[in-house]
């Protein structure tokens, strides 16, 4: 339909960025996950850019109408960059908070996984029934009546 700006180099660049991003996303450490999201996000942004026609600056009076690049993908990418920026900042804050609270930014196993591991360790066969009191040691199973507004943790800021 339209001349696209895509070429082999751009596809390789997108592939490498998204590939590295996905590899990093599979890591446990939140910082690596964050880096993965940033890389894959940039790959996606490139993909959008190359989805539009390439050409001269799309300014009326500066370049001819026929030779202009497509301005819409560029506008979309700007929006996407801003959004990725915001989310990156938030994820950075989360991983800092996680490190601050637990001393590491690794994402731990979820509740079901922990229960299965515990059952396997006790060679239990049956699933959860109401007399199962071993789950009491799990912080997510025992909701100690949390204060409505938990006090701020003391520590170096």
């Amino acid at each position, binding site marked *: 339909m339209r001349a696209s700006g895509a070429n082999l180099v751009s596809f390789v660049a997108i592939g490498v960025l998204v590939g590295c991003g996905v590899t990093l996303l599979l890591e446990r450490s939140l910082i690596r996950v964050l880096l993965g999201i940033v890389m894959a996000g940039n790959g996606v942004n490139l993909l959008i850019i190359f*989805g539009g026609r390439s050409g001269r600056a799309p300014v009326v009076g500066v370049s001819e109408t026929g030779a202009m690049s497509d301005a819409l993908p560029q506008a979309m990418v700007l929006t996407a960059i801003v959004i990725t920026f915001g989310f990156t900042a938030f994820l950075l804050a989360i991983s800092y908070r996680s490190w601050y609270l637990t001393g590491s930014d690794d994402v731990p196993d979820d509740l079901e996984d922990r229960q299965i591991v515990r059952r396997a360790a006790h060679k239990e066969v049956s699933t959860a029934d109401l007399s199962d009191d071993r789950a009491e040691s799990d912080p*997510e199973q025992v909701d100690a009546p949390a204060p409505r507004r938990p006090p701020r943790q003391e520590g170096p800021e």
Partner: protein
Amino acid sequence: MRALAALPVLLPLLGAALTLLLATRDRPQRVVSVACLAATLAVAAVLLVRTYRNGPLVVEIGGWPAPVGIVLVADQLAALMLVVSSAVTLCVLLYSIGQGQSEASESAPVAIFHPTYLVLTAGVTNAFLAGDLFNLFVAFEMLLGASFVLITLNGTPLRIRTGSTYVVVNILASMIFLISVGLVYAATGTLNLAHLAHRLDALPDTLRLSLQLMLLLAFGIKAAVFPLSAWLPDSYPTAPAPVTAVFAGLLTKVGVYAIIRTQTLLFPGPRAAALLLVVAGLTMLVGILGAVAQSDLKRLLSFTLVSHIGYMIFGIGLSTVAGLVGAIFYVVHHITIQTALFLVTGLVEEKTGSTDLRRLGGLARITPLLGVLFFVSAMNLAGIPPFSGFLGKLGLLQAGVAAGGPLPWILVALGTSTSLLTLYVASRVWSIAFWRAPGEALASTAPLPTLMVGATVALVALGVALTVVAGPLFEVTTGAAVDLHERTPYIHAVLPGGRP
């Protein structure tokens, strides 16, 4: 009059700005946000009446006409969703004010709850009204950004752990959505939904199908459809009660709404029907079996939430008008009732300090009102007549029977068994937490805050009232489904000149 369709987005955003300015003052903050959401509800009601009488309402933002400019489109489906979502967000806001969730405190020095909550509302309403794919993406990001803040409120270790899963999964889903948006634009040169409806028809079938599946994947994660649902029961239960309630009620339904919109408008026909039906069946079954195995009330409800998403996907997968009617009715019912159940759970937690079934007991004797509230909503969810859950399920099952064929019949059987299993889960919770002798979790003697109870009662009553207004509601959902199925009312409203 046309500008009315922009107000449901503008009002909450304006409110968010105002409440941020009033961050240090509790009372004005509350007044502003309650007023904003009440006004949004009023506007949504007017929109519903208007779209029912006169057809879709289109606002061209900045005055640029449709395929070029951004449009907000309020058709019957969008207006109906707006009414339900504003009513629910208003109730939950009152509830959280009653709980004191919204105030500034030692651990959250800036009272961030109100602004974030209003941005979340704006994101939800914008998603319902979005008339082009990229605007839909931005709406999703708005509500996601706000939900990230709400799910990690106060930054406790537990919320940080579950929140990080939620954040990463949802960013990934957004990325897949963004890739699909980029590919759709590269293939067609437009993102306006009505315009796309024309242009996608001209694409080769395989390309069309891959675009459809990409979008389905992105929305499937947001809607928590079975193979993509594991993140939900892991991350929702740890958030504060009102936050879980509004997430459970609305956020997954925004995903379902996006599936309905794109599957009917952009990719009509039964191409993905078999896939949707299989996924719907698995979602129902796996979700409810997960719920059977849980011993924590909040996690249990999260699993039933996943399970009942299956019903809506079932209705969409039938790709008949009757199926769509059932799906839309079910969305309305489920938004109300799932939120109500989570609010009741919040009240249980407020009263006893626990939602663990091993520790709860005798609640019906301690607080009879709580017992009534839970019983009514749980029976409503399970689909006991005469509640709206029964009507919604009946509509879907009838549509399945009418569609005929092996797959719809299997789905009808699965839907019935899921309903029965939901009843089993509900009665298990009822007999353990409410009926047996009081457990070790000691109920506090302090009475529950009136506003919290009032908001919950209002929402449960709304769920019951859906039965009373079922006739008119079915009329509206039928109108919406017929419009969706025909596609032309939407397309002609956005592009008045017909084919551009």
